[in-house]
Every structure is written in C-alpha cells, then in structure tokens.
C-alpha cells in the first residue's frame, strides 16, 4: 500500500438511564423477570394508550449534558421515528430529532498521544425497544416487551476520533462521567451502554470526509477495537481496488471478525420524523439547570485532583483509583474508617487489581465492605498478623467479604511471638540446612533469606519475621 490513510470515527453511544420506571409509564425497569411481566398498555403500544414523560429522565439527560459541557436546549420536544419492527410495539420510536435536549459539548481524553477534546454533537432522549429471542425449535421469533420503554440517552459525538485507542479512551471517559453522576451503570456486556461506530477513511491530508459506514452489535471494548481495525481494512481495500464505500449500516460479527450489511429491501431507512403530538414540549428554565448543576456530584477530574491534595497520593494512584467509581467509593469509605490513605490505595491498586485480573472481573463487581479492608490494615499495622498472612486474608475478603478479625482468630493466624518456641524451630532449621549455614559464614548474605523462608514455612507463616531474623543472626 503506497498511500497513507487516516481513519475518521464518530460514535453513537446509547446509555440506559438508571431510573426506577420506564420513560413513559410506571412499569419497572428492573432487569430479568419473566417475559412481558414489566409491561402495560403504554409500553406495548395498545390502541388508545398515551405516554407521560418521566421527569427523572430529563434530569439525568441534563446532568450528563452539563457534565459533558453541552448547552441545554431550553425548549425541546420529542419526535416520532417511524419504522416497522416487531420489538417496536407502536412501530414508531419516541425520540428527539429536531430539538435534542443537549447540544455542542465535548470531553477531554488522554491517550499515549496526549490530550485531545472529542466534540459531542448532541444528546437526545428516547425509548428502548423490546427483546427478540430466536426460537430455533419453531423457527420463529418471540417478543418480550420488558425492555420496551426503558429510557435511553443517545450521545452522538463529532467525527473527532482517529484510532481505536481514542475511541476506547472516549468511551471510558464517558462511562466514568455517567457512572459518577449515577445516571447509568454503563455495563457494555449487559447492554446498558452500547456504541455504534461511524467510520470512514481518507487519505492523509485530505480535507473532506470519505463515505462512512455505521457498525452495530459491538458489546465489548475489545470488539469495538477489532471492529474498527476490521472496517478500516475493509474500506481501504475497497478504495485501493478502485471501488466505492457504500453508506450503510453493518453488523459486526465478533467471532468472524467481519461486518455484514444489515439493510434489506423492506427497510427503506426513511424514518418520517415528525413532532410527537401526544407529548407536550419541555421548557427548561435557568433555575432548573442551576439546580441540576448544583446537585451534581464530584466528577472524575475533580476527584483525581483532590486525592493528590487531600490524601497526598501520587497522581498515578489518584488516576487509577478514580478510574472506576466503585474503586473510588471503596477508597474513600475505607479511608474514612482507618485514615490510612496510602495503605488503602496500595491494597486497592496492587492486591485488588491482581485478584480482579485473576478472576476476570470488573471493579464494579467488587462486593466487600470497606470496614473489612480497614480492619485488615489495622491488623497488619499493630502486628497482629504479618504481611504474608494479610494477603491470604485479603483473598478471603475479596471472595467472601469475611470479617478479618474473626477469620484470623478462627484460623489461628496471629503472629507467633513466643520466643522459646521460635528458638526451637530456628535451631531445627539450622540443623536441617547445613549448606546454607556454611554459605552464610562464607559471606553469602542471601543464605539468611532462605533460612528465614524455611522458618516461616515451618510456622505456617505465622512467625514474626523481625524476630526470626534476630534469632537466626544470634544463633549463627
């Protein structure tokens, strides 16, 4: 390939809002439940049913807009988007086209290449569709409207991203902001955050955009990264062969690592938007905006700065701890109990991260109580247990949320500080390892480490390491 191409990417991110009820009716948004048990005439499109807007949806949408530096559209409306599909009970979706609630924002992302602002074109409110399950047995599909009418916001970025790395950084930043606001849990796997990728390529230096495609069905960051690479390659190949990229919606198949066109001839993609006559416009006063702004919790960037100043943490620690709301919450709650910020930070950044990776878990899935971590830190500090034992206990806290004090007591893990007993054990270790003793006397300092280890092993890790060292040196 002789020519150099640049990838141009914009994202449409759908986020399910954390309201208790659906956007236009009093049905629960709770996950799970037997099919159609969270439904009513409104969210199943019964003839004569009418929508009434959930105020919390507007407030969450405003909060996300303010946190992403958007301007709020103070007179906004809903529109109908008309298309036929069985998961769409009215065969129109109530959405916003002409006057979306938020416009012209942007957020700053950080990648290896540095800092960059990604523009946000608009954020609009809309209702989610139901769920279709393919029934292989009867060769039919089954429609469940439990998710129908769950509130969504769609965040439409400007085409400001140039790489998968930037896309992931943008999504992570967006997720963090929304999680901090409490507006959504933003779980990609469960579909409470979904990203469609609009991608085009152009020759480096070109002023105009190439023809873009829209990719759907991306349900992990990894899939997004792969889809971007795959689609970029596909488009460049077309252009290199002198062919054209067709503007279309494609479905990413992450197993085959390839995207397929979704369009059918029955699908004219002409949505015939018009103002929703069943809902009245929304008028947002300056006072209302101010109220939402005031109620906004501390966001990521602010928190990161505060951790450095208030807790005297290195910026590296602050960055990692605040990168997940769950971690930051755990950190603050634990510090509030034991007042040992650096120690709490270490436990979260080292052992917690290691175990998360080992169990292939997300920080959001952490379930232990801050009080148990605080107790563990104090057990180490007052030398009730040693560091090795502490790690073992922490694993139990991580897995089972055990109370470390009780656990140490029950398992008899307290440090052994009985000098007579230790002298006995150390003597035996020396007798059993003459070679190491000789090495030590020949000046090999490492040998003492081996002997300490043997002693610890003999005490099942319960010995006070300081005492072991002291006794060893004395006896040798």
């Amino acid at each position, binding site marked *: 390939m002789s020519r150099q191409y640049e990838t141009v990417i914009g994202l449409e991110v759908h986020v399910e809002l954390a309201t208790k009820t659906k956007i236009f009716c009093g049905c629960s948004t709770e996950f799970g439940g037997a099919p159609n048990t969270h439904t009513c005439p409104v969210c199943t499109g019964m003839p004569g049913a009418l929508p*009434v807007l959930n105020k919390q949806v507007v407030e969450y949408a405003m909060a996300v807009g303010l946190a992403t530096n958007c301007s709020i559209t103070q007179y906004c409306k809903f529109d109908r988007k008309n298309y036929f599909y069985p998961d769409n009970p009215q065969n129109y979706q109530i959405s916003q086209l002409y006057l979306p609630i938020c416009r012209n924002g942007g957020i700053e992302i950080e990648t290896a290449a540095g800092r960059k602002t990604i523009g946000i074109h608009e954020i609009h409110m809309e209702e989610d569709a139901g769920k279709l399950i393919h029934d292989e047995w009867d060769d039919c599909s089954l429609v469940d409207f439990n998710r129908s009418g769950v509130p969504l916001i769609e965040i439409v970025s400007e085409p400001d991203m140039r790489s998968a790395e930037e896309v992931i950084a943008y999504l992570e930043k967006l997720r963090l902001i929304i999680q901090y606001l409490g507006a959504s849990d933003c779980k990609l796997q469960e579909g409470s955050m979904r990203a469609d990728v609009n991608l085009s390529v152009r020759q480096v230096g070109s002023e105009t955009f190439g023809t873009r495609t829209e990719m759907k069905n991306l349900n992990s960051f990894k899939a997004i990264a792969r889809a971007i690479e795959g689609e970029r390659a596909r488009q460049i190949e077309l252009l290199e062969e002198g062919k054209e990229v067709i503007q279309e919606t494609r479905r990413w198949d992450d197993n085959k690592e390839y995207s397929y066109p979704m369009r059918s001839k029955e699908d004219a993609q002409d949505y015939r938007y018009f103002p929703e006559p069943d809902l*009245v416009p929304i008028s947002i006063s300056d006072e209302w905006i101010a109220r939402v702004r005031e109620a906004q919790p501390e966001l990521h960037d602010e928190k990161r700065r505060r951790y450095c100043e208030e807790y005297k943490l290195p910026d590296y620690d602050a960055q990692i701890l605040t990168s997940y709301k769950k971690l930051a919450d755990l950190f603050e709650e634990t510090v509030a109990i034991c007042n040992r910020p650096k120690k709490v930070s270490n436990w979260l950044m080292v052992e917690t991260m290691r175990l998360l990776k080992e169990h292939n878990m997300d920080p959001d899935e952490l379930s232990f109580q801050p009080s148990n971590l605080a107790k563990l830190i104090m057990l180490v500090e007052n030398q009730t247990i040693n560091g090795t034992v502490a790690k073992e206990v922490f694993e139990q806290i991580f897995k089972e949320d055990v109370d470390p004090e009780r656990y140490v007591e029950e398992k008899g893990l307290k440090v052994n500080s009985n000098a007579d007993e230790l002298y006995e054990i150390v003597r035996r270790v020396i007798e059993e390892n003459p070679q190491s003793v000789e090495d030590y006397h020949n000046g090999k300092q490492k040998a003492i480490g081996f002997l300490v280890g043997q002693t610890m092993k003999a005490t099942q890790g319960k010995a006070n390491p300081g005492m072991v060292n002291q006794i060893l040196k004395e006896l040798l």
Partner: protein
Amino acid sequence: MDSLQFTAAELGRRIARRELSAVEATKAVLDRIEAVEGTFHCYVTVDAEGALKSAEQVQQQIDSGELRGPLAGVPVAVKDNISTKGMRTTCASHILDNYIPTFSAEAVNRLQRAGAVILGKTNMDEFAMGSTTETSYFGETKNPWNPEHVPGGSSGGSAAAVAAKECFCALGSDTGGSIRQPASFCGVVGMKPTYGTVSRYGLIAYGSSLDQIGPLTKDVTDCATLLDVIAGHDAKDSTSTARDDGPFAEALVDDVQGMRIGIPRDYFGEGLDAEVREAVLGAVKTLQERGAIVEEFDLSLVDYAIPAYYVIACAEASSNLARFEGVKYGYRAPEYDGLHSMFKRTRSEGFGAEVKRRIMLGSFVLSSGYYDAYYLKALRTKALIKSAFDKAFERFDVIVSPAAPTTAPKLGASLSDPIKMYLGDIYTISANLAGLPGITVPCGMDSKGLPVGIQMLGDCFQEKKLIRMAYTYEQSQNRRVQDEQTV
C-alpha cells in the same frame, strides 16, 4: 309511560325519583334496539346482557344512596373507537374485529363512575376516516329520518342511535367534524369540546393533535350534562387540560342579550345548499331577536383548512395506525411468507380502501424530501388559521355557520369522489386545527324532510358561551312548538 321519549337528564331525574328503574329504562331501550336496529344499524356491538347486569348494579347503588348523579342509571352508547374494558372495540375495522381491550378509556371510566349504563358500541367510519359511516367494515348505518340517506360520519352510529332512540345519549369523537356533522344530519345536538377538555386516554387515535371525544345528545341540557361527566383533567393524557370553569350545566341560561355573533361571509358562499342557508340564517335571526348582536365578517383562509387538515391528519394517522400489524392484537393474515409479508398482508387485508388511501398519503407527505413542502407547510398554515380565529374572537363571542353544506346525502353518493367528500367538512375542520369548541344544534328541516344543523364555534375554553347560546336558541324553538300546539 314511554321512557324512550325522555331526554337523558329527564330520565336521570325520574330514576332518581324512583318513578322508574335503571333496569326498566335499559330494557325499554334494548327492546327499541331489537325493533329498529335491523333498519338503522347504529351499533357494531350491543351488549344486552352486560347492560342489564350493570343496570341492576347501578340501581342497587342508587337505592343505597351511593350514586346520585344526573346520569345514574341512564343507558348510553359509546363510539367503537373508544376503548371499553372487556367489550369488543373495533374502530369498525376488520383489523380490530376481534380486539377486546383490557382497559377502558378515561371517558368511559367517568361515565361508569357516574352510573351510566353502557349499551354497546356504535358504528362509525373505519378508524373515523370518513363523513358518512359508509367506510365501516360492518356495513353502513342509515339515517333514522330517511334510511335511504347516510347519517353522516364518522360518529354516524352514535348520532343515529340518539335520533332513533336506541340510546339516551352517546359518546362520539371529532377529528374534523365527526361529531358535529352527523349530529346535524341526524337532527341531534353534538359538541366537540376544546382540545384537551376530555381525556384522549383510550380513544384509538386517528389524528392525535385533532381528536376530541364529545357528547351526542337529544338536547343542549343533555349535552352540558354529559360533558360535565366526561370532562376533566387526566394525568394519563399529557395533552389533557385542568380547567376550573365548570360545571358546564351552569351555562344553561336562556339569554343571549348582548352576545356578539360573527357570521363569516366565506362560509355562506358558493357550495352552500340554499335551504341549509335559509334555515341557518333563520336561526341567526331568532338569536338576534333574543338580543344577540349579529355582524358579518371575513374569516379568511377558509379554503386552506381542508388541505392543511388532510396533510396533518393523514400524517399522524399513518404513524398512529402503524401499530396494527398482527403482532400484539387484532387480525393476523392467515397466509404470509416471513415477517414483512405478514405485516403487509395483515394490513392490506385488515384495512379498508379509505384507510389505506390516508395512510399512503400520510406516509408520502412525511417521507424524505417532502416533509418541509407538505407537513411543515401545513403546520404553518395551521398557525395562520389559529391566529385568524384569535383575531375573530377579539370581536365575537360565537361564530355561527352551517355544520355542513348540505343535508344528509343519499347512501353511496359520496364515496366515489373523495375530494368532494372532503369538501363537505369545510365548516367543521378549522375548529380541530385551532383546538376550538363547537356545537351543532338542529335548526330546521329541508324540503326532503332531512334535518339541518347550525354550528356555533367559540374561542378555546368558551364552551359555556356555546351552551348558553345553543340553549337559548333551543328554548325559542320549544316555545314556538308550544305556541303552534296551543294555536
């Protein structure tokens, strides 16, 4: 005692005084239905068993003192696009001919709370699209004054049922004149309230921004009485208005002294039948004699209301009727090949010609490239029409006109030329675009013996002025009849 002669309010009073029971009244009207329904075909569904059962319950509640409203025990009919829990609601369409709602419209709930006994569901133009009740999947309704003529539409079944004494009063719906025009053709009183006055919850939508439920009754007193029962704010309808100017029955006052009547010249020109004009102007003269101040004026924009209406109503209808596709309720085509084929077959077999015509037009005017030229243009025209009325109501309390250019046409005479049929809505349609209340009251007969109706339009939320004027006119007519009888 022939209870069928009573108005709804009179019947309610007699039931309250224990002169007759709700069950007796219900039986009487069911007998009447049995006797004449074969001729007029006002109903899609008659629920005799349910009506008698509910009459018994209502009577018990009257006896125990729980129920004492003016409509307690009064048998009523409900247009078949207004949802009734457990009672088939078809919109006179094949696509809903087996649909049994699991909830009732708010207007029906209010009727039932007031103790009204629901007799059944009245015939209509399919999905309220039409002016003659001939587009019904279940066959046409006939005009009780002359069964060779149409009853008007789309609430033709409700208007005819009131006229034929097959109920004491009825609910209709009005999107472009669908209460006022059939009331005129059938010689009964019909009112479209201000948009938002009666909840649309449970009304199967045709044009959501235009639809209103309203009363069809034997006289103006019944109209006010029924309106008082069904009107009121409903949290389930975002476009419902909380009003504090009731009760409407307070406006049943025989006095129009000093009220200003505007006669739009544009409504009395070409196309208006001479006998209709004479009857309406005669009624205006009566009101003038009673002290009203009458003045002609130019309303302007009259010719633009119908095209603007058809763009807006059809656009909304194309979207509102998208939900009928055989997945969740109603008809599903027996044979199809795949999902989209099922949608298409179901809708093509389920909808009649007029409904398809309007869905096609509505889909077209909203489609890519045409939205601005047609839909936005119509919404702009609507804004101009609204401000023309605002200006007129600075000068007048009530605007008076015919309800329709002619009396009821013969069966089969209208459907062949849709545009001609649409032109028949010329006097009624603007009120829907501007959200205004309008009432039709009988004002005479033509030489064929068919009723003529006068329409009175008021500014938004001015139903009381309409009721007062309509009542005053009605009283003058009653006096005339009494005088004639005395002579």
